[in-house]
């Protein structure tokens, strides 16, 4: 469903710029609103093209964003990040306050390091309301490990302390967005028995979405799963494939051709990155002519995966307890501690949020550093 009424986001969620700027210079910013189970597409006015080398760099990001929004630092929580395709400005989705009552704000960090609040309500907007969102009284729950929920409780499991929050299913209706050839991919949970969903919505929005329930083999849990949502996804291999990652931490390949909105589609698990961990982001980039993928995590280091290894990896379908089980494709730990949210600036650079002595900072990492 589309509408052109004033937007007023109710909650802060994933953000994504459409990669193409229109001929008149306007760009499209997609914002996920879990409270309304809706994707908004804001038309942003033209922004000046950045110089090729221009990058955003902000120290004490957490403090500055909180100050801008007039709250204490722990009450400004990052929920999404994306990079403007022309100006290279970084747009941040911030929950102002804690828990379900937190209000949304979009903050723009320019290449001059200046932070400003993006005023959404005056922008032209269309929207798409998902018709498969879990209802608020669905008694099933999802588990978050990122420690951002007030109901998070520290629990020690096998000597590791995790901040575990059980949240109602509808809070995970939309977990991440990706873009492939004019189509927005929306991951998250649905009201179906097989809750994990990957939806495809053409833009400009019409009334249609292709909604596919997806199933994966979880090596660490030793079983096929349909309940756990994709936490982060990206297209790769020239847009023909989706790489998705899940909590505790399978990495799964889906061919775009598989996703036709029919039946339960089984992805091909290509890596198990290890338990007691929730991925923040997954991005694709090129280094020396070769494509790689990066996965940032709550507990594991920043992990690098060569895209070339994925095609030949047979589906992992044996539990970890089996003697001949496999963790799949090779991965490399990168020495960039504390990297959480990430977004692609271009094929050779990745914008990251990095923990920095109790605060956070915004940096751009070039392929040579990755």
């Amino acid at each position, binding site marked *: 469903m589309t509408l052109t009424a004033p937007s007023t986001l109710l909650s802060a969620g994933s953000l994504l710029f459409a990669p193409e700027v229109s001929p008149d210079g306007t760009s499209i910013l997609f914002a996920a609103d879990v409270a309304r189970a809706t994707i908004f597409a804001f038309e942003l006015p033209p922004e000046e093209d950045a110089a090729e080398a221009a990058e955003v760099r902000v120290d004490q990001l957490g403090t500055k964003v909180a*100050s801008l*929004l*007039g709250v204490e630092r722990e009450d400004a929580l990052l929920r999404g990040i994306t990079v403007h395709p022309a100006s290279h400005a970084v747009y941040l989705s911030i929950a102002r306050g804690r828990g*379900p009552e937190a209000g949304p704000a979009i903050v723009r960090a320019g290449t001059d390091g200046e932070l400003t*609040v993006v005023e959404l309500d005056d922008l032209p907007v269309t929207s798409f309301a998902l018709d498969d969102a879990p*209802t*608020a*009284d669905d008694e099933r729950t999802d588990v978050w490990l990122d420690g951002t929920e007030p*109901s998070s409780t520290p629990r020690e499991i096998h000597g590791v302390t995790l901040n575990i929050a059980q949240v109602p299913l509808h809070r995970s209706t939309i977990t991440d967005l990706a873009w492939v050839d004019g189509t927005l991919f929306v991951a998250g949970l649905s009201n179906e028995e097989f809750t994990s969903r990957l939806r495809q919505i053409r833009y400009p929005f019409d009334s249609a979405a292709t909604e596919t329930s997806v199933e994966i083999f979880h090596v660490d849990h030793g079983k096929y799963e349909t309940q756990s949502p994709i936490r982060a996804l990206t297209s790769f291999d020239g847009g023909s494939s989706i790489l998705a990652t899940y909590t505790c931490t399978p990495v799964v390949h889906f061919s775009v051709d598989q996703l036709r909105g029919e039946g339960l589609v089984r992805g091909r698990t290509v890596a198990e990155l290890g338990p007691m961990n929730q991925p923040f982001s997954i991005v694709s980039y090129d280094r020396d002519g070769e494509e790689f993928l990066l996965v940032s995590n709550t507990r594991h280091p920043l992990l690098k995966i060569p895209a070339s290894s994925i095609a030949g990896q047979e589906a992992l379908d044996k539990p970890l307890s089996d003697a001949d089980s496999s963790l799949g494709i090779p991965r490399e730990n990168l020495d960039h501690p504390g990297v959480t949210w990430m977004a692609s600036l271009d094929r050779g650079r990745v914008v990251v949020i990095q923990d920095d002595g109790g605060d956070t900072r915004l940096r751009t990492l070039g392929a040579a550093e990755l």
Partner: protein
Amino acid sequence: MTAGTWDRDDDAACFTPRFAAVPGTGYVVLGRPEGPGRDWRELARTEAPRAERRSSTVVEAIEPGSGEVPANLLRFSVTFSAPMEEGSAAGHVHLLDETGHESAGSLLEMPPELWDRNRRRLTVLLEPGRIKRGLQPHVRAGAPIRAGGRVTLVVDAELRDATGAPLSSAARRTYRVGPPVRSRVDPALWEVRWPTAAGEPLVLRFDRGLDSTLVRRYLRVTDGHGVPVPGRAALDPAATLWSFTPDSGRPCTRCTST
């Protein structure tokens, strides 16, 4: 720097923050003289007053609304007059036996707290392992509530609403516990009174008290073409009598439960 706008006249400057000030948050006003190279200095320091947390939110309903519940009841629901703070319910909803003692392990532990989207209705589940016959918790500890007795659901005043204020008072509801009901819900056993004239309601009398939340969600009235008929539905507190009055006197021809 905090987002907002400054309005100045000759001897005053007024700052309007872009977002409402959060009670208890400290702000510092900095200023510097005009001209290059001048340093900022602190002019004032202030704190947004903490809102007086007045208790005005109350429990509007504890359901089931009947005086008696079956011994295999699955859940209660508590409706509040205002949105509540998620995370504040754990430890503040209790089920008491006839002696006024809390029956340990009878309610499913929170979190997770099962709030509706507006965070006004909390679903409180009885421990499902103790309801379903044959499961170990049922075998070991028995059903959470037993036929022939009385139980009282108590909602403490300590539950907080979305502003952080506690409830203005605690609430409770006592039930007789009847025999378990294990037969399926069968619409064929419902008594149906069809409207005989425009403006009259369609009335269903159920063969037992149903779950009022599910009744509100799953009963629909459609016309002969399967199109939903607009109108107003009402349910009595015991959830045994449901009536539906079509808007503008449209007759309804078919009632569907989904």
